[in-house]
């Protein structure tokens, strides 16, 4: 097994260019740098949900992902870790971000390390990471690292937080994600259509029948 890892970055910004994407790129670059220090090679796939917004809505309505969205979903759920960044709208993650989460299989992110990022106009929204976004990933049994990185508009300029500047917060979150990745084996393929995965290795249908078949 090679030690090549892969991070999926999901950015839910709506404008282009977006400060959500800027934050996402900074988080990804910092994570790659930390992994490099540990000798771990990593590739990064960046997905902007804006590009998939129509497909996400169609998936909500029809129950299946159109091909482009399906490819993207597969890349996200099979990554070694996720960097998820959303703008804060009306005190929570954006509707597009939640809609994307809603079309994932509920088990798809189980055990997945996640670095949460969020951005908004002012720092008064910064707790949204901990009262809205973190519970969402906890519900999905993902493993969000303890630091979430919030960027207010001012963080990008003159009146930024001088004591804990954005760069330092990014670095801390990225380090935690890099450590979570390094602690784990490479994400194993989990083909849901492999009998070993839905029956258990070496087991037969009798296993599903339980006591009825004496297994």
């Amino acid at each position, binding site marked *: 097994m090679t030690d090549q890892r892969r991070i999926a970055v999901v950015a839910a910004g709506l404008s282009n260019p977006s400060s959500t994407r800027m934050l996402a790129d900074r988080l990804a670059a910092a994570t790659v740098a930390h992994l490099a220090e540990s000798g771990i090679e990593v590739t990064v796939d960046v997905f902007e949900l804006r590009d998939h917004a129509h497909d996400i809505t169609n998936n909500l*309505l*029809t129950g299946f992902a159109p091909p482009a969205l399906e490819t993207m979903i597969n890349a996200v759920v099979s990554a070694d870790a996720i960097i998820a960044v959303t703008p804060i709208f009306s005190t929570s993650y954006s509707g597009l971000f939640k809609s994307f989460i809603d079309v994932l299989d509920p088990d798809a992110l189980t055990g997945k390390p996640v670095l949460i990022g969020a951005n908004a106009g002012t720092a008064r929204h910064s707790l949204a990471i901990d009262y809205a976004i973190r519970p969402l990933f906890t519900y999905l049994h993902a493993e969000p690292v303890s630091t979430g990185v919030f960027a207010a508009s001012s963080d990008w300029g003159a009146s930024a937080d001088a004591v804990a500047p954005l760069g330092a917060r990014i670095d801390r979150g990225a380090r935690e994600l890099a450590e979570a990745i390094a602690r784990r084996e490479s994400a194993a393929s989990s083909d849901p259509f492999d009998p070993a995965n839905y029956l258990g290795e070496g087991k037969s249908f009798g296993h599903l*029948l339980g006591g*009825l078949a004496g297994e």
Partner: protein
Amino acid sequence: MSDTTTWPGMQFGIFTVSDITEDPTTGTTPSEAERITATLTIAKHAEEVGLDVFALGEHHNPPFWSSSPPTTLAYIAAQTERLILSTATTLITTNDPVKIAEDYAMLQHVSGGRADLMLGRGNTGPVYPWFGKDIRQGLPLAIENYALLHKLWREDVVDWEGQFRTPLQGFTSTPRPLDGVPPFVWHGSIRTPEIAEQAAYYGDGFFANNIFWPAEHYQRLITLYRQRYAHYGHGTPEQAIVGLGGQVFMAANSQDAVRRFRPYFDNAPVYGHGPSMEDFMEMTPLTVGSPQQVIDRYAGMRDLFGDYQRQLFLVDHAGLPLKTVLEQLDILGGEVVPVLRKELQRNRPAEVPDAPTHAALVRAQFGDDRGRAFRPGANRGDNLVGERPYTEATPRAGAAFGAAATKGA
């Protein structure tokens, strides 16, 4: 009228969900009575145009009417001679497997062996609590209930204890399956590998509804089912019994088909107000166009899924008026299916089994054309005394399986 008796390899038919939907072009919604009567007409017309199968869904909430498929199918059986009556699907999760065993054995008898059924878990959440079940147990219910159903049709006296149903001691499901051969069972699923595994384990058929999702989803399930069918020793992967759904709307000229069907598509339950009809046609087997376009699309299904045994079309939904549905059946039976029979027969390997019929199952089980008759002990009120509740099963007198066999179904 096409000749359907020359090639037993594949069965073609229609399946209906029994939705009562407003016709978006007129703003009128049929009554339950009108839709039920219309569906009976549609089923009878399916036979008239040379189709082989009519399959009916099961729902327990408006705007659907089909809560009791065995009743409806028994009526249709009495009004037809050749048509195979099936379901799409029978809820194996919330129905009592004992009642399913009784109802469909009964349907087998009154239809002269023209009954089979397709089992599914259902996709309407509240149905589970309405029938005292928990949707989170959907898969275990499907697995345990079918294990019991399978046993009830094969063992004259059943002792049973499971997780979900009250135990049975010395229970005999009556009537016994016609000729001692249970109705053929298809297991339907759109996403669950365990159901493909279940179908393979028992050597039953697997049906992919093939309507709402891209072909790749169903390819994975069917490939899995075929591999596991072989794994459990029922034959080669190519010998597994596969059924597919499909959805078509036709007119002589494809532009007319598109123009006429679009308002129904755009407002249809499930996918209406979602993707465009063009996108949906690209992503799923929905084909709206000329009969030739439908032939080309569905003749290609075996390239995706392997040679298969049953093709059902959805033509009766989304508010389409009866007259239009009957026209669709005329085109299907008159122009499309006869060509598909020829196309799909061509180069079909000899080892691929024919579509399942009662007659063929009797032959497979008993090695001859004579089914078995079950005669209870005279005036006996119990089935616990003695070896079994029936005197030794004897071949049915006369030529074995009634109208279905003699008419070559």
